[in-house]
């Protein structure tokens, strides 16, 4: 029987077999959302009418005998930073309150074409800046494993929706770990594809040279199925890769890593990493060795500078990307009393419309790009980027993929790090090098930390345009751990009850 706890692949099979309908599935998920989202707050907006209309259309088409794409009729939760025509898109910011974009992002166009039903828009740190979803202007999302804890960020809403069975699939975006770190702390799967693998058209930019949308799911295969829907060349994104999409579904089904060389990054373990995180990580390495992989320790010495480079590059680019939010053409407008000038109204609007973290990064980026400081900050950060890419290239000359824990800790308590930006930034220490180099990265659940019983993520990094390799390793690890545990990790999560 298909339930909301089924995988997307199972739902797709049931739809194809005619044992369920998209309308049924969609309604079941809205019922779950109704039940638990008051506590989780994964969604910012639900598009029931649109979703059900689409579900009905898919069902009718299927009934008429039309051959349907693999995931047609399966529901999905969309991170609120991708435009969907006519549907509120806020990026978790007050700035865009009430904005309904007049166009679809390429990712949304592809989802629609694939018959995937978009349930609604998920919560996030404002403009994707954060690692806890506490920076949303609309209140935090709660981790279904422990409602007092953060679900990671910036895509905490998408990850929590999966973990709370509010949706079987979700879309996230990953600039410094915003798909992978939430996946790690919620016990779900999250993939950051190779930069350029998925079109950025309609993805509201945070840091253009780092941003990448990607699939979120509860299994590696589900993520792969969704990956193949949203990936591919787009002529509206100049940085989109014009090459065939790696065969990630095939790779996810291989369940075999015999002869593969897996590089363990020396710099991404040890100090700063929670002991329960490290022990699950090492157990997973053992599982991969048992499955026939060879482990190689590799050193990436410049990773020590990745965080610093990231916190110069991302703020610099965001200071420019977010300049357009000035109240002239869309979004809120504050202080227009008929007397103030456009400039004054811009300043007041940006004061009210942006939260503290966004302002912090805009000011930091404005500084890093200023004449006289550019070379020392932005320029130097770009050089570090080169050095990190060299580290990766050297490592990939020796191994097929690289691995590390996804995040140094399990989910922390809401409010615990809000006043310490530097501590907050450390959550992304293991995920950031992937974004700087533009390569692929994936987080797969690898168990619960003994000390707190919370999920731990295992990160797999693959060379650019070889996303298939991380799916192959991730799928194999997932299968090995599942046979060890006997049940999916989310079965261990507390069952949420409505209030």
């Amino acid at each position: 029987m298909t339930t909301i706890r089924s995988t997307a692949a199972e739902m797709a099979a049931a739809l194809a077999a005619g044992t369920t309908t998209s309308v049924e599935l969609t309604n079941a998920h809205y019922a779950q959302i109704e039940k638990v989202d008051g506590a989780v707050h994964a969604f910012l907006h639900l598009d029931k009418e649109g979703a059900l209309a689409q579900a009905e259309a898919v069902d009718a088409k299927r009934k008429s005998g039309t051959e349907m794409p693999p995931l047609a009729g399966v529901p999905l939760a969309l991170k609120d930073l991708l435009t969907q025509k006519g549907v509120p898109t806020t990026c978790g910011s007050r700035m865009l309150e009430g904005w309904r974009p007049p166009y679809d992002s390429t990712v949304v166009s592809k989802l629609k074409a694939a018959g995937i039903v978009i349930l609604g828009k998920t919560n996030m740190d404002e403009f994707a800046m954060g690692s806890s979803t506490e920076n949303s202007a609309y209140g935090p999302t709660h981790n279904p494993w422990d409602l007092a804890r953060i679900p990671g960020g910036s895509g905490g809403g998408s990850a929590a929706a999966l973990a709370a069975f509010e949706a079987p699939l979700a879309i996230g975006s990953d600039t410094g770990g915003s798909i992978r770190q939430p996946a790690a702390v919620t016990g779900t799967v999250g993939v950051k594809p190779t930069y350029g693998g998925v079109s950025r058209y309609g993805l509201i930019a945070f840091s253009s040279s780092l941003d990448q949308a990607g699939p979120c799911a509860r299994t590696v295969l589900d993520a792969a199925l969704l990956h193949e829907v949203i990936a591919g060349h787009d002529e509206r994104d100049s940085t989109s890769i014009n090459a065939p999409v790696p065969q990630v579904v095939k790779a996810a089904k291989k369940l075999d890593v015999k002869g593969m060389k897996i590089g363990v990054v020396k710099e991404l373990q040890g100090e700063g990493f929670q002991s329960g995180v490290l022990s699950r990580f090492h157990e997973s390495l053992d599982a991969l060795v048992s499955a026939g992989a060879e482990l190689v320790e590799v050193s990436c010495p410049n990773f020590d500078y990745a965080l610093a480079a990231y916190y110069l590059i991302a703020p610099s680019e965001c200071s420019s990307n977010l300049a357009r939010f000035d109240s002239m053409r869309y979004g809120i407008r504050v202080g227009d009393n008929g007397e103030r000038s456009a400039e004054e109204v811009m300043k007041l609007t940006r004061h009210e419309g942006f939260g503290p973290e966004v302002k912090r990064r805009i000011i930091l980026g404005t500084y890093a790009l200023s004449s006289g400081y550019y070379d020392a900050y932005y320029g130097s950060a770009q050089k570090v980027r080169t050095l990190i890419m060299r580290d990766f290239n050297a490592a990939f000359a020796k191994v097929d993929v690289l691995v590390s824990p996804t995040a140094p800790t399990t989910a922390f308590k809401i409010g615990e790090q809000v006043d310490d930006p530097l501590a907050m930034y450390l959550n992304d220490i293991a995920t950031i090098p992937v974004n700087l180099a533009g390569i692929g990265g994936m987080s797969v659940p690898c168990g619960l930390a003994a000390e707190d019983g919370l999920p731990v993520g295992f990160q797999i990094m693959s060379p650019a345009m070889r996303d298939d390799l991380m799916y192959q390793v991730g799928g194999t690890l997932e299968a090995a751990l599942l046979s060890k545990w006997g049940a999916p990790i989310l079965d261990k999560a507390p069952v949420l009850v409505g209030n």
Partner: protein
Amino acid sequence: MSGISREDVAHLAKLARIEMNDAELDHLAKEMDVILGAVARVQEVAASDVPPTSHPIPVNNIVREDIVRPSLSPEEALSGAPAQSEGRFKVPQILGEE
């Protein structure tokens, strides 16, 4: 590297068009000091012989054919405008214009 003053932050806030009161400026100046102190370490390894990377995937010459495609309707273009008039975006007085 530290020593970001409140005046420095005020100048940056002006460049970034963000209104900030004194308390916000003071608070941010302190935070900037800490953060810049931490990120300045990029300079340790940024040697002159290392080329900068501004784009992770090396591709060149991506261009589009010079073909006209339909624009938005003016209603769609203006759909999010906080104020509009006569098919145009209505904005507060722009200072310093002729």
